[in-house]
């Protein structure tokens, strides 16, 4: 990835406590415009906590800057327009329609109590068509399968039209064709200059990212290209050397695939 691209998100010595437990331990990082980062690591490594700290959703020590400005310098609304969050198993209320959910992504762009503008409707339409959910826009969430819900929630995040997307396990329950679609959407977003950080348990999809951040025990143990040998070594180490690596060719480029052993 070119280093001349502007930094959109940076963290300096960020730590997060969950009660007495140090979930994130002194993590520093930078994220550049147009970059897709896959954040990976074993269960309990602190990935979701770090992502929440980057999104300003949990109290954290250290400093997080969005577009070069500290969190505290942002108004709530401007921050919500710039950074979109997609969390794990979000939806709980089944009577919201697919369209209503996607329209929630436009809340940061609307004045309080104002009706959605024609632009809001247009953006929601594009977001729902992108995730192929437009045809069932009038259905309620309760009528959808887990994977379909996840796509609708992704449409909600896309409707924000943010510059930074933080996604916590966006592919949980999503079938293979839609995982492939997700890769396309992320590529599309980064080509438009947005930056994406996604927590992924699908290691082989992580290896398609521009950068892989590897976490273990609350620490960022490695950040590097998915093609680099030390990235694979770091991943093997945090997963207790239970990964088996296989080489394959993708359009003339050597790629790696990880399988459990």
């Amino acid at each position, binding site marked *: 990835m070119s280093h001349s691209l502007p930094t959109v998100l940076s963290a300096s010595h960020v730590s997060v406590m969950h009660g007495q437990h140090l979930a994130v331990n002194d993590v520093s990082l930078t994220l550049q415009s147009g970059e897709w980062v896959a954040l990976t690591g074993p269960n309990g490594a602190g990935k979701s906590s770090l992502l929440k700290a980057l999104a300003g959703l949990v109290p954290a020590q250290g400093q997080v800057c969005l577009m070069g400005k500290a969190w505290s310098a942002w108004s709530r609304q401007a921050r919500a327009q710039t950074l979109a969050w997609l969390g794990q198993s979000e939806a709980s209320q089944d009577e919201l329609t697919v*369209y*209503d959910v996607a329209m929630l992504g436009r809340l940061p762009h609307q004045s309080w109590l104002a009706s959605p503008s024609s632009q809001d409707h247009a953006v929601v339409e594009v977001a729902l068509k992108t995730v192929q959910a437009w045809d069932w826009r009038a259905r309620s969430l309760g009528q959808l399968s887990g994977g379909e819900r996840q796509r609708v929630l992704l449409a909600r995040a896309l409707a924000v039209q943010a510059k930074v997307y933080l996604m916590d396990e966006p592919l949980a329950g999503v079938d293979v064709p839609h995982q492939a679609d997700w890769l396309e959407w992320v590529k599309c977003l980064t080509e438009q200059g947005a930056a994406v950080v996604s927590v992924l348990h699908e290691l082989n999809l992580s290896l398609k990212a521009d950068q892989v951040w590897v976490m273990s025990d609350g620490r960022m143990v490695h950040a590097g290209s998915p093609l680099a040998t030390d990235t694979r070594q770091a991943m093997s180490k945090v997963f207790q050397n239970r990964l088996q690596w296989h080489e394959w060719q993708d359009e003339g480029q050597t790629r790696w695939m990880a399988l459990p052993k």
Partner: protein
Amino acid sequence: MNSNAPPTSHQSRNMGFAGLLLLGLIAVVLMGVQLGSEGLAWRSVQADWTLMTDIRLPRTLGACLAGALLGLAGALAQGLFRNPLADPYLLGSASGASLGVALGMVMLSHMGTNLWFVKVGITGMAFLGAWAAVALSLLLSWGVQHTLRLLLAGVVVGVVLGALASLLLIMYPSIQGSVQSFMLGSTAYVGWPACLLMGLVLLLSWLLAVAASPMLDGLALGESTAQSLGLPVRQLRWLLLAVLSLCTAAAVAQTGLIAFVGLAAPHLVRARMKGVHRQSLSLSCLMGGLLLGGADLLARGLMAPIELPVGVLTAICGGGYLLYLMHGVTTSSRAYKGAGS
């Protein structure tokens, strides 16, 4: 539907549903005015004019207004706590109100009448008791930040204040009749001042709830998502809890403890509609009004001239509905598991 248009069909369905509920409410009020101790009396309008305007009309309207308050409070509670079994009393307000009434009765019967209590009255004591219980729950849970802690604090406060109320009943057996009648719920003594008060509270609460409803929509997708959308979650949660408590306390103070209306109204609405909270809150108001208004009619008419306590009727009907709901949930989850396997 135009393929490029946003889905408006469910919105017009919701409007139609609201129209039906309104018609039902009007019918309930008309029947409530005619229903006396000898059953419906359509022909004696002239003779009973004072009876109808001074007693039956405020009573029926009061039942509808109290039901609307409970329906709104129930919808708010279920949205705020993201729990379909949440009801308006979950922060201990019912036990608080009972204790308030029991205390009031003790003061009235054992300590004379020249007290500040006379100015507050039994309804005032119920109102204060309900508010004090909610305040205590909030205090014990250290604010609104942790939903589970708040719910547990509400359970603790409910149990403890309920026990204190029972203790008072044992210590002062003479107040048992009045407190029990409060706990069973009744619309018999609702007059015009109570209607006016409940109407004003309902209007204010509905406006505030609708204004803050985007927060409930955001919250339906999770606390983190609501925050990430730029919603002032903490402030709006305080506001909505205050509205919830105000609605519950106002209804309880005037009609006593009415069971299940606050729980059932939002469920009945959600079974028939889909859409955002702005719509479901308003529809829950109408549904709550219709339920309690209808229950009041039944309580007066079923065994006329004997009047059943309306709270008993709503408890029996509401319990039945809850069983039906449980059956529905079990069946659908079984069907879901079957489909997934």
